[in-house]
């Protein structure tokens, strides 16, 4: 988001305004009231006696509420105002606004308070791509309600606006004529309600509607309950506590309940463009947050299963068994001008779906979900064999069938230039990136465990295990770049190695596909100066042909990427290296007030001393929000084993003592403790806080969790 914009949200409804609370959107400007991928207000401007207001201050009270303190005039020199305005806004099925105008003068004043409203009903994709509308607009005033409408054939969208106080309503907005006595106050409410006729929605009041007879759904209480239900972090290094709390609040904000979720919430991908269900993002965020908020994983699995591919559809890149990439609800999707209904073009969410299902059961013991989704998990595993092996070589490949609006790169690094040879050349299609093979391996291993323990199908389990072992053997041969001892980023269509050195090799450790004998070399690369910036592992190693420290997938450091790399390091026993990465990213979080951006620059830490935010990174973004949670798991070495939770801490020294209390799982609730003992001062340029030798080095970690009475 651009600086200076204020954003509040509830599910996939959000408002982006300027510091005054005004909205003046252009065709390509991301301000406005958005819901279900459609802009429902593109103009919302408050004036008093024809004058725009000036913001004294703006409070983001909660993620769903903001308050603007305003005075008339827009001059740069502040003159004591005789009048001030407090504008409070809460989002939810539209928004509810309370305007309060105060006369500070000894004299009465006559005021014309005006709110201009308009709407372009732009699809989010139109805002991004500056496309023209094909339907017609309407404005009606009836019974004190201003209706703004848009129609294209059977597609109807409508914004209705009402005011609490008497107003003169015209097609452009509301005018309030107010006589305000000395020291007097006047206030009104304004309700803006969005309606999607196609989605079967009826006009509703916003959640924060007015009127004494109507109980207010208390979102604040909901947020408090959400935070109270999550484990508690206590830490000698205070910034970690703040980052954790920030993550929990942002996760609450990013919760999204698609119609198929049955009222459950899953993590949407990010604000503002990605407040929707993404297969990959929702799954990876659910994996990160499993030890903290396991209900997100269940909602993700059930919702993705409900929309799992069942047919061949080239426009949507859909195959039977494939897990969706992204679903959208706007006009372009409705008229099949974009394929997001849903779009399936990704090669990783399908194996990751099985990975999440298994990891979820390991933590929660919820075998019912595993039984409910048996067909879906089997279909996902079958997709790997039947639809992903485009070259008949036993690997997962991708190549879009929708050449116009489909995605070229169907892995998490989905920008056009992300997959390259060392010299910068781009391979043709199809492509088989290395981490996809790791995910497929892990999905089979985990699918075998579920088949054996829950579905009671030993033959299927044995078949999957054989496939996994075979894949691992071939992968370690075919992807291995012998001379420099790392795994190639991908294979090209000729079976050649796409040999750029990239962060993807860290995901291979997480998946377990790496031969033990090769792990040491992989780790040396991950922690070497070409990949490790001091803050974290770069997406592409410095020195590669396409390396660019502010290249989205070709040099920037992604906190989410690093959280999985650190998890992989732990899996192979490289505790100290995992702690070093955790220290770098968590230290970076402090520069962003605990809210990690999607990505930051790959500049060496010793050069910039602070993490340089990637220019257009969206924030909060779900898997960046989940990263600190996964780092907590990794640093404490939390691993479910049977009905127990093993705790094996390896913390950066500067963190001091770390307590994670009330970790939910099949054991009930358990506490975990650790003390910082991993020296990370060799890490270039690390700040004192986490690299301080004066940390509690002599302390020993407590190696087992303290069990409380099971909570059932």
């Amino acid at each position: 988001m651009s600086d200076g914009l204020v954003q509040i949200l509830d599910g996939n409804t959000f408002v982006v305004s300027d510091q005054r609370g005004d909205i003046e959107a252009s065709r390509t400007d991301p301000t406005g009231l958005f819901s279900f991928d459609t802009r429902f207000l593109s103009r919302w401007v408050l004036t008093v006696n024809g004058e725009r207001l000036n913001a004294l201050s703006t409070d983001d009270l909660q993620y769903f509420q903001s308050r603007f303190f305003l005075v008339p005039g827009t001059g740069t020199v502040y003159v004591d105002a005789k009048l001030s305005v407090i504008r409070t806004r809460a989002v939810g099925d539209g928004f509810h606004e309370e305007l309060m105008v105060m006369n500070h003068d000894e004299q009465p004043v006559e005021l014309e308070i005006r709110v201009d409203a308009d709407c372009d009903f732009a699809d989010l994709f139109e805002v991004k791509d500056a496309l023209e509308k094909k339907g017609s607009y309407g404005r009606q005033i009836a019974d004190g309600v201003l209706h703004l409408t848009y129609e294209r054939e059977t597609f109807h969208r409508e914004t209705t606006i009402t005011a609490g106080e008497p107003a003169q309503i015209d097609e452009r907005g509301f005018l309030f004529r107010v006589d305000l006595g000395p020291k007097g106050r006047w206030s009104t409410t304004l309700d803006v309600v969005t309606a999607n006729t196609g989605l079967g929605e009826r006009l509703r009041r916003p959640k924060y509607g007015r009127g004494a007879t109507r109980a207010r759904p208390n979102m604040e209480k909901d947020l408090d309950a959400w935070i109270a239900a999550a484990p508690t972090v206590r830490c000698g290094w205070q910034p970690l506590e703040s980052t954790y709390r920030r993550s929990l609040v942002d996760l609450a904000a990013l919760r999204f309940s698609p119609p198929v979720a049955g009222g459950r919430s899953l993590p949407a991908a990010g604000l503002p463009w990605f407040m929707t269900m993404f297969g990959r993002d929702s799954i990876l965020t659910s994996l990160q947050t499993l030890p903290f908020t396991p209900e997100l994983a269940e909602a993700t699995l059930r919702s993705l299963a409900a929309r799992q591919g069942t047919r061949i559809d080239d426009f949507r890149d859909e195959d039977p068994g494939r897990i969706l990439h992204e679903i959208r609800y706007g006009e372009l999707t409705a008229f099949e001008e974009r394929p997001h209904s849903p779009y399936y073009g990704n090669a990783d969410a399908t194996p990751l779906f099985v990975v999440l299902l298994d990891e979820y059961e390991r933590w929660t013991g919820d075998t019912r979900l595993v039984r409910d989704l048996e067909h879906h998990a089997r279909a996902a595993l079958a997709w790997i064999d039947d639809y992903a092996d485009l070259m008949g070589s036993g690997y997962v490949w991708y190549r879009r069938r929708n050449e116009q609006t489909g995605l070229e790169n169907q892995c998490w690094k989905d920008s056009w230039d992300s997959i390259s040879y060392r010299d910068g050349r781009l391979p043709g299609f199809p492509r088989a990136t290395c981490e996809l093979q790791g995910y497929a391996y892990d999905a089979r291993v985990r699918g075998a465990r579920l088949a054996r323990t829950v579905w009671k199908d030993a033959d299927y389990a044995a078949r999957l295990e054989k496939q996994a072992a075979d894949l691992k053997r071939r992968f370690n041969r075919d992807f291995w770049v012998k001379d420099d001892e790392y795994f190639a980023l991908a294979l090209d269509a000729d079976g050649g190695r796409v040999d750029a050195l990239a962060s993807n090799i860290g995901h291979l450790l997480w998946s377990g596909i790496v031969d033990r004998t090769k792990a040491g070399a992989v780790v040396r690369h991950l922690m070497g100066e070409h990949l490790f910036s001091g803050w974290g592992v770069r997406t592409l190693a410095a020195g590669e042909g396409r390396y660019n420290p502010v290249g989205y997938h070709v040099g920037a450091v992604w906190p989410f990427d690093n959280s999985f790399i650190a998890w992989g390091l732990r899996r192979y026993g490289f505790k100290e290296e995992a702690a070093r990465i955790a220290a770098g990213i968590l230290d970076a979080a402090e520069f962003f007030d605990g809210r990690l951006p999607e990505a930051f620059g790959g500049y060496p830490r010793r050069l910039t001393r602070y993490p340089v935010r990637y220019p257009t990174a969206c924030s909060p973004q779900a898997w960046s929000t989940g990263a600190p949670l996964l780092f907590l798991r990794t640093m404490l070495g939390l691993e479910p084993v049977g009905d127990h939770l093993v705790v094996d801490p390896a913390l950066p020294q500067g963190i001091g003592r770390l307590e994670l209390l009330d970790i939910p799982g099949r054991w009930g609730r358990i506490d975990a403790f650790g003390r910082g003992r991993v020296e990370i001062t060799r890490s270039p340029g690390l700040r004192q806080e986490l690299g301080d030798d004066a940390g509690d080095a002599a302390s020993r970690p407590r190696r087992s969790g303290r069990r409380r009475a099971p909570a059932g």
Partner: protein
Amino acid sequence: MVDRKLRAGATQEFVSGLCAGGPYPTLARVRAIVRFEVTDGSPGEGWTLALADGTVRLADEAAEADCVFRADAATMDGLASGRVNGTAAILRGALVADGAPDVLAAIQALLPGPPGSSGPGQAGEGAGA
């Protein structure tokens, strides 16, 4: 003019195929009465289906429906033949779907894909291995 009988025939064919086929694993846990209503057909034109234990059967027209799909004959025919996408049709208001979202999703999963789609196929053999 589109031949009304032909369209009704396409939808009828799809419904007959559904009832003859199965069991459908995605319906294993679904038990519901689903009604497809043709809005521009003769009064009462439509199909009432009973979903249970992974199968689809024609049900009594008078049975109370848990879910209703409502569209004109052209849209209904498009859905039955795969030329119209169910989710997109709902988003643009051409198809009204009323009822439990999980049942609606399960029904949509049974709709065929576009007639011209050929699938991924294989680009060659033996690469990489």
